[in-house]
């Protein structure tokens, strides 16, 4: 082989190998795509089958459980009924989810269109869940005096009902007096034991309201034996969560655009400004989250005071709050039993605000806490602020104001992306305002303030040491602020042997009823007169009542704790009718109805078949009426009041002329039936026993019947409506004869049929007898009976049918 040939061979091999690689390279993606598609289809089919089976299983389970519900309802075992009802409710939800997935969810996954169903699966439930309740309080709860309810809002998770109301003029004047002018609409948050609220919810909500009211956050509140409500200004707008979704939808996947970022920074600055006011007023909001921030055209405002807590409260920390926006450190401290005044609650609000900022930037929750990565478009300085706010308890911003300074710095910058973290006020060493809590807020009047346990630990660094409190009255749970430097000026007044402190009211009027005894004691001391023995103390009965209330509250707390440890089903326990019970009863009703209809239909069909297939021929059937069939004689009876309408009779002039005659045309026009016999020329004797004067209803029924007979070519004898001259003698004799035949027998008696059959055979001048008489059971009703003799008329079937049609306005099917 020459060198050229060898070169050509090698070149050819190389080309072949290259071509093979090219084919593989080109084919591989196609094969992979096909593989993915096939895999998706198999997965789709598998999921569809799986969900179909699950759906069938749920339906079967529901059907099996339904009788249990019915049985327990009948037995009055409401708890068991609720139990089975919940089980059915779960099955129905499962079945609904299966149907949804089979019809929409799985196909969407198959065609890579998850974005299409995202709205249904995520946003729709959110919207439904956030739907407000009833627009009016229930009658059991009662109305709110001085307010007109105009709507309702979604209640959230606190267990209260939210109503939008308009205060009347008196209320508005009262609000103006307390420094809140121009209140046009308010929100009333109501808790009622009659309406499903629980005592712990009421206690929690009512705890900080005095302080909140002083700050102007709450306009009014009222606590009665079974109801508690408070009134706030109505803040129109949308929640920050909704606004965030909208901003991200407008900005795209990469994150907020510049305009949206600026708005976000402004909203957070508003929130921090408000929080600064809270904290300086001695309050801790404790539930800062996007849903509790309302954004209107101008600014963001904080709502929902359900968890507001005085910073110096002596209560134990609770884990209340919202996951992802609640500092995990708060949970740890609460589990350790730390008191509220031993921590700086403001820092937990700062954490929550950082989490809110994160969620607005990312359109997602900080599921990883402080470690949650920021992946969307965000200035580095803003990332720093978020992380600083969500940092460990003693490393985060010490106050909302410090965070606010940083946020405002970013907001004021022309290019937020150009700011470096080192330039932020908190990093540049610029002193940030960290004012001590205002002294204008009275400590919460709950027990005595204990020592600041654990205040020296590292995690508690920076916790402001609260004021010293002096017990004023153990009985009344009252205390006064005690400041060594100003004890003589602002603290309680020592009264020597009396041992009482005057109420420190900062110049305001003392609460009526609470300090009357003390004031009386002071007055007595000044007068030099003896001091009443029990001055300032409640009576023994009052003390016993309070002790009972405390014991009951403790029992309730214990019950709640026990309930919280139970399984989820036990937690959800509510005896009585629930959705599942209702579904079961509806299922049973519908099922019972279907079965009943089926049985009735079956009975009709059986009866029809029984009548339509007579061993002995007769005149046919009249649906719904008794039709005795005899070998020789036949009768048809009908209640004209209930007989169904049939098409109107075709007038003689317009009847089609055919070989079968007008009678056939009459019947055919009525029901399109082929009748091979005619009754033209047949003679019908009418026996009318209805006593004149006839009622209008009876006349309207009998006269057309006889008209139809005339129109059909039938010779009607003794027609009381059309024979003006009356019946002839022969006819009169026949009528008398028939009356004799009948005697006292009823029209439907078998013997009468036989007798009239015999009479008809004997009298060749009459083919049929139509007997009309009043219906005994119903005044004004008319009963019509048709008698004929089969042997006398070879065309009995057709003739009888036609007559029956004419008489009783109904048709019969041909045999």
């Amino acid at each position, binding site marked *: 082989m020459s060198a050229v040939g060898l070169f050509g061979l090698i070149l050819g091999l190389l080309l072949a190998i290259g071509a093979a690689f090219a084919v593989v390279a080109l084919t591989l993606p196609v094969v992979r795509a096909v593989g993915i598609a096939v895999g998706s289809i198999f997965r789709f089919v598998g999921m569809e089958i*799986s*969900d179909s089976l*699950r759906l069938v299983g749920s339906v079967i*389970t529901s059907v*099996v*459980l339904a009788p*249990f519900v019915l049985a327990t309802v009948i037995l009055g075992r409401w708890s068991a009924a609720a139990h089975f009802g919940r*089980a059915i409710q779960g099955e129905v939800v499962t079945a609904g*989810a299966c149907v*949804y997935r089979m019809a929409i*969810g799985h196909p969407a996954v198959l065609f890579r269109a998850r974005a299409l169903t995202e709205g249904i*699966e*995520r946003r729709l*439930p959110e919207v439904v869940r956030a739907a407000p309740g009833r627009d009016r309080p229930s009658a059991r709860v009662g109305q709110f005096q001085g307010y007109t309810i105009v709507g309702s809002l979604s209640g959230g998770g606190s267990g209260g009902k939210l109503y939008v109301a308009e205060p009347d003029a008196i209320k508005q004047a009262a609000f103006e007096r307390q420094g809140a002018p121009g209140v046009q609409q308010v929100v009333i948050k109501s808790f009622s034991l009659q309406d499903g609220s629980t005592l712990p919810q009421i206690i929690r909500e009512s705890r900080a309201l005095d302080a909140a009211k002083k700050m102007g956050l709450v306009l009014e509140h009222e606590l009665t034996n079974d109801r508690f409500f408070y009134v706030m200004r109505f803040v129109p707008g949308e929640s920050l969560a909704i606004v965030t979704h909208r901003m991200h939808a407008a900005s795209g996947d990469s994150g907020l655009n510049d305009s949206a970022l600026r708005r976000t920074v402004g909203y957070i600055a508003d929130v921090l400004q408000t929080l600064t006011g809270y904290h300086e007023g001695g309050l801790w909001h404790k539930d800062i989250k996007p849903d509790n921030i309302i954004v209107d055209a101008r600014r963001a405002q904080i709502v929902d005071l359900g968890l507001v807590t005085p910073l110096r409260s002596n209560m134990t920390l609770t884990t209340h709050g919202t996951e*992802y926006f609640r500092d*995990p450190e708060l*949970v*740890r401290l609460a*589990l*350790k039993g730390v008191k509220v005044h031993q921590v700086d609650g403001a820092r937990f609000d700062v954490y929550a605000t950082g989490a809110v900022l994160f969620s607005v930037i990312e359109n*997602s*929750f900080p*599921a*990883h*806490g*402080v*470690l*949650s*990565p920021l992946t969307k478009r965000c200035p*580095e300085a803003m990332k*720093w602020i978020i*992380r*600083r706010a969500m*940092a*460990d308890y003693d*490393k985060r911003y010490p106050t909302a104001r410090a965070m606010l300074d940083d946020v405002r710095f970013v907001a004021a910058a022309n290019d937020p992306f150009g700011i*470096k*973290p*080192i*330039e932020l006020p908190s*990093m540049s060493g610029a002193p940030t305002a960290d004012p001590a809590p205002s002294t204008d807020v009275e400590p919460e009047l709950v027990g005595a303030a204990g020592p600041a346990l654990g205040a020296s630990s590292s995690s508690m660094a920076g916790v402001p040491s609260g004021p010293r409190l002096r017990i004023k009255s153990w009985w009344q749970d009252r205390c006064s602020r005690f400041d060594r430097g100003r004890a003589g000026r602002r603290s309680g007044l020592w009264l020597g042997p009396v041992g009482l402190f005057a109420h420190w009211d900062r110049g305001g009027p003392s609460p009526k009823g609470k300090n009357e005894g003390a004031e009386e004691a002071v007055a007595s001391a000044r007068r030099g007169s003896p001091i009443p023995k029990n001055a300032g103390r409640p009576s023994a009965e009052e003390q016993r009542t309070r002790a009972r209330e405390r014991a009951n509250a403790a029992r309730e707390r214990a019950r709640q704790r026990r309930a919280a440890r139970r*399984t*989820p089903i036990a937690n959800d326990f509510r005896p009585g009718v629930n959705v599942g019970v209702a579904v079961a009863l509806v299922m049973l009703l519908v099922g019972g109805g279907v079965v009943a209809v089926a049985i009735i239909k079956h009975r009709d069909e059986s009866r029809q078949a029984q009548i339509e297939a007579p061993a002995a021929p007769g005149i046919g059937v009249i649906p719904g009426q008794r039709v005795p069939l005899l070998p020789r004689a036949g009768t048809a009876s009908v209640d004209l009041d209930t007989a169904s309408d049939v098409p109107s009779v075709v007038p003689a002039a317009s009847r089609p002329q055919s070989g079968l005659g007008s009678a056939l045309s009459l019947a055919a026009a009525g029901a399109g039936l082929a009748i091979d016999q005619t009754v033209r020329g047949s003679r019908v004797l009418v026996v009318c026993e209805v006593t004149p004067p006839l009622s209008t209803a009876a006349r309207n029924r009998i006269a057309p019947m006889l008209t139809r007979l005339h129109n059909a070519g039938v010779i009607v004898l003794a027609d009381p409506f059309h024979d003006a001259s009356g019946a002839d003698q022969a006819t009169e004799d026949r009528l008398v004869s028939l009356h004799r035949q009948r005697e006292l027998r009823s029209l439907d008696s078998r013997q009468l049929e036989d007798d009239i059959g015999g009479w008809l055979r004997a009298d060749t001048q009459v083919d049929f007898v139509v007997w009309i008489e009043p219906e005994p059971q119903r005044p004004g009703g008319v009963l019509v009976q048709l008698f004929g003799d089969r042997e006398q008329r070879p065309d009995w079937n057709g003739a009888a049918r036609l007559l029956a049609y004419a008489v009783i306005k109904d048709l019969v099917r041909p045999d």
Partner: protein
Amino acid sequence: MLNTLTTSFVARLKARDEAAWFELWETFGPVIRAQLTKWGRGKIGVETVRDLSQETLAALSGSLDRYDPAKGARFSTWLLAIAKHVLGDEMDRRMALKRGGGKGHAELDESWMSRAGTRADVEYEGAVFRAKVEKAIRMVEHDCDFADFAIYRMRVFDGMSGKDVAVALGTSEPTVSRRLTKVRDLLRIRIAEVVAMYSFTEEEQREAEKSGLLDGAKRKSEKDADSMFDECLCEIFHTQTELRKRDREASDSARW
């Protein structure tokens, strides 16, 4: 043989220290939920998964007193066995409810966990290990100076260059490097501690070395070891972040 950290942690659990239980829940909750979701796919909803993962810890509380280290079960297997037991118990309970009768909860004994059916898959073992590392990162975030950890986060987790970090924070690159080293050293210590704390067997304790986090001695240079450590930690961190993200999304779609 259990190490001191483990025994002290188990002792805290036995003493019903709620903070210890919260730690356990916070650290391994997502892993247990992911595993229960995997097992109960289609049979139980997300809300039930959340309840069951809490019940798993409650059952763990009951089984702690009977735990026998001599059986040699891994911590992850122990957790998994209890989770599976709780799930099975829930299924039995549901079936009993459907039959209209009652069925008592099964007894939990340690022999159950040694059955072949409770052996965990690689994915689960990896998730448990990642949860331990995540716990260590949280501890370091708690212990470290805020700026130090922020530097480490920006450099390693966010992938910024040393120079950019230095510019952003107004410091020099050597300072950034020094602070990185400080955080990294602390991370190594905490990872070793956490892995030891949540390990019942020696095999589990060696997991950090196997994963490349704590095998600095085998590297050619300290720089290589640091790079390897940072890389591994970054990967683990982001994988765990994904797990938490899925967990949150599952919570959001609980109704579906």
